[in-house]
């Protein structure tokens, strides 16, 4: 039976038209509510175009591949010739049971919330729920056909969805100030994730990142306080961070399975010794006082400016680092060998790629970039604090995982992590905007990571690994 014979439901031109109409409807809805909310015109246009393009592309993508999917029941037709409408429905339900279940759960949750919480059932929340539902359907159905980079697709869909819902629900969510602050915090998290991503590409983990960030934060202020020129101090701290990273790599090379715990150990040791050193001769143990130079403050403060433009240079640093890493991992020998090693050690060894060299170098990079993050955070806060890195302990891991870099190594990249970081950051901003406290934020984070990862990072069943 040929593929043409399977063309049953919609002809491609018709599908394209439906997609076009659907996209126009969704975008029009968004624009209508934008005007209703009194948002600036350029934002409405931007969102309108973005939603239109996304929906149109999604539908087109779906229908262009759909016939192949539709063929399958036709091929089975001779076996079960007497198919009724009920049978069709059952196959449809069977194939999309996860999607239908989730959608049903969402609708039920929404209904319960509408009936129990007074003032919950408003136009804005209905629209948000519809957008959420639409995104869910989009993410789940279309992602079946996105074979490469499915995590990036899901991530972008979630990112756009969160942003749209946030913009509808929270006043000032899409203001320039909020976007700037989101980007600033994203750049801290993103820089902290550089090392974690590279290490994860080799199948390792680095839990020393938060401790190195905290130590760099306190250590930099301490060294500046000793009278060292600030620029030299920053270079010194980054060099020290790289050294710690190198030690991490060298020690954990023979213990790759236990890298998690070994880096945790070095992290404890580094943070402890930094505090001991900075406490010597000081009556305030653990607290370092000093003045942060203005240029360092400008580097990461909200009101900083880059070449006259009104955004902090930390964002620019992150963008530059991201571009370098994304391009570098794709196109340089170093990057390709990293993937080769992460994918299969034995075959990489046959290409005479030194596993030790790469393992140590990614940890060294991780240490150096973490130290840089610590320095930037000092500029942001203006005071040294050893615990400044603590939120990054599991956040870096979460961002890497949500982005879609496999913790087993060999798959993913920094571009994915950028998406992961942005998703987490927009989500945080959204939850803060909804007036949720820290504990609720963390709870929702925890609950959301799992389904997001489950959309693309399911490992095959053991019977298919034999």
């Amino acid at each position, binding site marked *: 039976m040929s593929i043409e014979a399977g063309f049953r439901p919609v002809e491609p031109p018709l599908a394209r038209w439906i997609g076009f109409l659907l996209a126009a409807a969704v975008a029009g809805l968004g624009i209508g509510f934008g005007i209703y909310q009194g948002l600036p015109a350029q934002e409405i246009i931007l969102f309108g175009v973005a939603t239109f393009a996304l929906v149109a592309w999604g539908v087109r993508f779906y229908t262009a591949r759909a016939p192949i999917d539709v063929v399958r029941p036709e091929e089975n037709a001779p076996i079960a010739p007497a198919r009724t409408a009920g049978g069709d429905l059952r196959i449809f339900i069977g194939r999309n049971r996860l999607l239908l279940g989730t959608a049903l759960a969402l609708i039920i949750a929404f209904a319960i919330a509408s009936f129990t919480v007074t003032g919950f059932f408003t136009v804005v929340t209905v629209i948000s729920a519809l957008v959420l539902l639409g995104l869910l359907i989009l993410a789940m159905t279309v992602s079946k056909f996105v074979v490469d980079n499915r995590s990036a697709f899901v991530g972008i869909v979630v990112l756009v969805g969160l942003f749209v819902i946030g913009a509808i629900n929270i006043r000032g969510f899409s203001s320039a100030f909020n976007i700037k602050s989101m980007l600033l915090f994203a750049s801290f998290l993103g820089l902290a994730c550089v090392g974690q991503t590279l290490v994860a590409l080799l199948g390792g983990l680095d839990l020393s990142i938060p401790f190195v960030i905290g130590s760099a934060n306190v250590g930099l202020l301490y060294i500046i306080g000793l009278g060292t020129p600030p620029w030299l101090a920053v270079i010194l701290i980054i060099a020290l961070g790289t050294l710690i990273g190198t030690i991490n790599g060298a020690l954990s090379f023979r213990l790759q399975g236990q890298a998690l715990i070994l880096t945790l150990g070095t992290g404890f040791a580094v943070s402890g010794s930094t505090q001991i050193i900075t406490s010597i001769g000081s009556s305030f143990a653990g607290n370092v006082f000093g003045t942060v130079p203005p240029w360092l403050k400008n580097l990461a403060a909200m009101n900083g400016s880059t070449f006259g433009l009104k955004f902090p240079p930390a964002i620019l640093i992150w963008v530059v680092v991201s571009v370098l890493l994304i391009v570098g991992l794709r196109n340089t020998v170093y990057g390709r060998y990293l993937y080769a090693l992460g994918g299969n050690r034995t075959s990489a060894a046959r290409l005479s790629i030194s596993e030790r060299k790469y393992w140590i170098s990614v940890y060294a990079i991780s240490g150096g970039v973490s130290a840089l993050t610590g320095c930037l955070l000092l500029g942001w806060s203006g005071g040294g604090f050893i615990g400044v890195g603590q939120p990054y302990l*599991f956040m870096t891991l979460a961002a890497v995982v949500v982005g879609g870099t496999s913790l087993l190594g060999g798959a993913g990249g920094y571009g994915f992590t950028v998406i992961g970081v942005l998703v987490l950051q927009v989500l945080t901003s959204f939850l803060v905007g909804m007036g949720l406290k820290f504990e*609720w934020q963390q709870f929702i984070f925890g609950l959301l990571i799992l389904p997001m990862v489950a959309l693309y*990072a399911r490992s095959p069943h053991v019977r298919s690994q034999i």
Partner: protein
Amino acid sequence: MSAVARDAAEADPIAPSGSSSTYLLVPITLFFALLFVAVLRSPRLVTVSGLGSAIIVAVPLVLATYALMASTIAGRGTVDLSVGPLIGFINVTLIQIHGAGGLQSEAAFILYALASGVAYQVLMALIVIFVRVQPIIVALSGYLALSGINLVILPRPGGTAPEWMSTWGAGTEVLSPVLVILLIATAGWLIFTQTAFYGHLRLMGSDERAAYTSGVRITVVRIGAHAISGLFAGLSAICFTALISSGDPNQGTTYTLIAVTALVLGGASLAGGRGGVVGSLLGAVNIYLITYVLATFNFGAVQSFVTDLAYGTILVLSLMITVALPFLQRHLRFVSPLLYFVVLSVLTLGVILHAGFDYAHLAPMPRAAGSNPDVFIFEAPGTYAEAAQGSRLAKPIVFALLVVIGLTGSLRLLVQRKRPLSLSPVVFLLAAGLVLLGIYAIKNPQRLGHLLGPAGIERAS
């Protein structure tokens, strides 16, 4: 018989004694090194109240490490980061429900703790099995969700534990209910290791595909491992509640990193397939002892920083030694961890006796009537100064013990060369004898006078 099978058969008798338990050598060494320092720095540790409070503090951590161990053995890189928040969750819900008037009976209280631990862990196992996401991601997700919801349930430390639990956390005696819980948990696991299920679990942890192809029902085994882990987590939460006798949403969370550290210090492999209660127990006790030893030094304001530094350094060093172990193992194949343990414990016994007597000799402690603040376990009757002079039998006993140990060791060496005949019964007997002696000494301190020669008998009568 094929060559491979013959090789396997020849290698087999050596493997069980060597390969798995050689990893215990590091925690054992560390344990006794720390115990030496701890006892010499602060002999209060070996008084009844000192040991009692040490047990109260250490047991929740030990059980948390057990919980982690049970699921880690199952493989696939299961490092259950959520074990700390889970303990916190059970703790805060216990306190809140009890405060609201539920779970008044002891049985319901304990059952609830165990059931919620098992329920959570089984849920996690089901997600790992059917959603097929990496376990560490599930654990991370659980960590974030649970530590968030803990703060929602109980925003700040507070509440009170039930009445009947108030004596648990006193730490005035060695044989407290908490110790009984620990003993039951340990014995339960040791019995469990005798079952076929445990063999399946280890096989699955080492190589899941091999387990699957040899017909092990890996779904059932994984759920079972997680259920056991949940039981341990529930027990740990009960002991934790007894320790702080209130609810605390944050403190439980800190158990995660400590328990992972303890597990690794105990020689378990985070990759799965290797681990056990003995190693976990030693690892967790080592963590406690590190803190204890460091607390005896007065670092002033930098105390917590030194603790961090020491934690990290010891963790890294013990991991490094684990790397070197396979090389050592080739040359020290006859070293039995059990014998090693017994030898070192005899030495430690000497140190404890020395510390107890010496301490008393230097500064005889005034004894308040009615309370017994510093009752040494191996305390001699009468005044300390007299007792210090009176132990005539001590030398012969120590000498005899050394001879027995030496004999056992050399016999073992000799026999091991010839035939794979295990001498472990002898070592077991020796260990059992020592334990019995210890219990006797704890139970009847005044009878110990008979061991101390004429001077002791005189005083006892």
